[in-house]
Every structure is written in C-alpha cells, then in structure tokens.
C-alpha cells in the first residue's frame, strides 16, 4: 500500500479539511491517506465514513491524532498504523 502522508498540525482551520478532502477524491485501492493532526477531525471522518472509506483514528501520547483513510476494505489499518508510529 502506498502511503500518502499529510501533516496538518500547523495549518489553520479549515485548510486541513480542504487538503484532506482533495486527496480523498484521488484515493484508489492501492493507497491510503495518513494524516497527522492536532485535533480529531470528526467532520472529515464522518464524510469519509459516509462515502464508504475505511478509517482509523488514534491519539498518541503527545496529543497528536493519527488518521488513516483508505478505499481498500481488505487492509488492516491498525497494522499500517503500528508500522508507522508508536501510539
């Protein structure tokens, strides 16, 4: 799976949502979006969920949120997350 990283921790609202939604439109079965966010982006997760994407959100010990979104339903996002970061 190809990781599309997006670090939005220092971007002002609503830029993170705008960028993430733009990438979501271009996702396919072979890639996933990995967002690093200072907040839990609920509107984005709701939107992705409604559109049939598989999502995972986890907060790390520093208060950063790790958001994984993919179109591929057969991928275990938790495994991808564990491989990327210790949360």
């Amino acid at each position, binding site marked *: 799976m190809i990781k599309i990283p997006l670090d939005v921790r220092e971007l002002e609202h*609503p830029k993170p949502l705008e960028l993430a939604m733009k990438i979501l*439109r271009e996702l396919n079965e072979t890639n996933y979006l990995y967002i690093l966010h200072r907040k*839990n982006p609920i509107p984005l997760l709701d939107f992705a969920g409604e559109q*049939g*994407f598989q999502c995972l959100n986890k907060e790390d010990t520093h208060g950063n949120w790790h958001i994984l979104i993919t*179109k591929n339903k057969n991928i275990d996002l938790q495994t991808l997350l564990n491989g990327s970061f210790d949360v």
Partner: protein
Amino acid sequence: MFSQNGLSLDQAPPLSVIFRFFFLGSLFGILAGVLLFFYQTEIFDASSTAALTFTHLLTLGVMLSFMFAALFQMLPVIAGITLTSPVRRANLLIYPFALGSITLLLGFNFPTLSWLYTLSAFLLGVSLLGTIIPMLSDLLKLQNHSFSSKGMAAALLSLVFVVLLALYLLASLSGYVDGSYYVPVKAAHYSFGLFGWIALLIISISFQVIEMFYVTPPYPKIVSMYLPVGILFLLLGSTITAFFIPDIWILSEILLALLLSAYALLTLKRLTQRKRPLTDATVWFWRMGLSSLILSMLSILILNFTELSLLKPLSYIFFTSFALSIVFAMFYKIVPFLTWFHLNSQGYFSAPLMHEIIHPKTAKKHLYIHLATIITFIASLFFSPFIFLAAALTILSFGWISYQIIHAHFLYKKTQKSGEKFDMGSMN
C-alpha cells in the same frame, strides 16, 4: 464547523438557517446607517431617544441576529446539542424577533403609543425566551462540558436576565407597573447585555476558535475556567447589591474593565504566538476588536475619576467596534467554510472553493471600510458633519456583508442545481 468535541455537521442546522440570521442582522445594520442621517450626533447623548434607538438597533437587531446565527451553528458542534427541528425553531424565532425589534424601535420614537411597548414585550419575550431557555436547558444537561460550552451557558443565562429585565422596563414604560425599580433595573439590563451577553459569548467562543483557527497555544486553564463564571457572578452580585447600594456599579465596572482588558491583552498575545504567521483579514478584525475592547475599558476606567465628557461616547464607539469587529471576523470564517463544506458533504465535485465564495481580498476591503467607519464616528465627536460620512460607511459596511451572504447563497443554490456530483464511495 468545529470538530474538537467529536461532533459533526450532521447535527448542524441547514445553511439557510444560518444565512437568514446573518442577513437579518445586516438589514438592521443598514437601517442603523439610514437612521444616523436623521439622528446625527444626538446618538452620543445617552439619555436621548436617538441613542436608545441606535443602541438597540446595534445590540438587539445586529448583534443578537449575528449571535443567533453563531449559536444555531455552534451549539450542535461545540456543545453536542442536537437542535430538534432547527428550521421550525429558527422560523419561530426570527419573524417575531424581527417584528418585535421594529415595534420596540417604533415605541422608543412614539412613546405616547404605549401599546407598541406591550406588543414588542410580547413578541420579543415569547420569541427570545422560547428559544434561549430550551438552548440553556440543553446546555446545562450536558455531561461533558468544555470551557466554551460552560461559557456559552453563562452567556445565555445573562441573556435570559437581559430579556427579563427588559420586560420589567417595558412594563414600566407601558404603565403596567409603577417603575419604582426602573433605574437599578436599567443599569443591570445594559450591564448584563454588554458584559454578560455580548462580551461573555465572544470570550467563550474565543477559547475554542482562537486556538483552532489561528494555531495558537491554548488559553491558560485558570482563565478559561474562571473568567466567564467570574464575570457572571460579578454581574449577579452587583445587580442584587445595587438595590441597596446603587454605587456598587462603579466598583463592578472597574473590576469588569480590568478583567476584560486582561482578556484582550492575553488574546492579542496569543495572536502573536501563531505557528504560521500568515495574517488574513480575520486576524486583523480580531486585533481591531480586542484593541477596541481595551480602549473602551480604559475609557470606562478613566471616567470613574474624571468628568471628561468625550470619554463616554468614546467608550460606546470602542465597545461597538469590539463587538462588530469580532462578529465580522467570525462571519468571514463561517460563511465560506459552511457553504463549501455543506456542498462537499452533499457530494458536489464542482463545489466552489472557499476563496471563490468570499475572496480574502473582499474581507480585507471590508476591514478597511469598517476601520474607516469607526474612525469617522470618532472624528464626528470633534467635527459633527463627519457623522454623515459615518452613516454612509455604516450602510456600506452592512451592505457589503449582505452582498456576501446573497452571493454565497446563490453559489450554493447554483451548485445544487447544476453541480456535478462525485462518487468516491463506489463501495457504498
């Protein structure tokens, strides 16, 4: 719009509800500008009909409309409150509220027609209390409060007092009660209105939006935890004490001025600690509003020790600048985002981007208009014909806002009618 507390736009009301309140507020603003041509600098004499009418046009007509737009949007997403039947609820508020406000303004100008006071008391009392009390009740039932939701509850409680005190004042003016407490009730009415409702709501919302919109460090917990409740208790204590010691308001005003100045300085400092120091018009609106708050509070503080006649109207102008600047800052963040996000959520591929809904340069132009408006109001204290320019700029300022709402509404409708929908979720 705001996602921190695990809530989504699904719980938010339709866009039309928000737009309607913004538009109504703008129309009241235009009316305020028109009436300025007739009232002129008489508005600076606090005991005049002109001042009474102009103040209520701005606080009741403009500010309350804009703040209801913010409340209808933010209560579901900041506090997690699901507003059942938001369209019906908004309609039950907006029409009697608009009619009640106009009736009240007419009542001030035709005091012999006391039935106008009675009618406005009925329309405003029923519509405002019928909306605020359920909102407040929902807020008080919340299990998990944020600092913002607690502050919003304190602000709404203040608004309940503002309305109840206003009903007493209207009953006195209509002759239903003898009005023996008119003076202390009037002092409590405007103190709760300006400090408890307007300032407290802005403060509470800022706890959430300053950090999120501008990527700043959060407010110190002691401030976000105790400032709103401190202001509320100070107002409550002063209101009760004023029935026995009327001069208590002098001490309260000094304390409130110090608290609000400290808040404004802290927020200005937070805005200097932004991680990405790109400054758009909304940051300047915040800076202008907070600086105006400091100047207004400074005028109030000095007024307690001197007789300088200019300070009173200056404190009014600066307080108005504080409230309007921040309302405009929020407007330019809320309207493009909501239009864009509602369309995206509905799946429109051709949804206009945020800067196409309201371009940042458009907001900046409004900033200059707004700044010029405030400067000409101040200039009119020294050279009264400037008031005509202030009137024209007030109309332009609110006309500008009205146009942005109409433009956003038409883009929204146009996209819904002819926009291309994308299908990302072929798995649905």
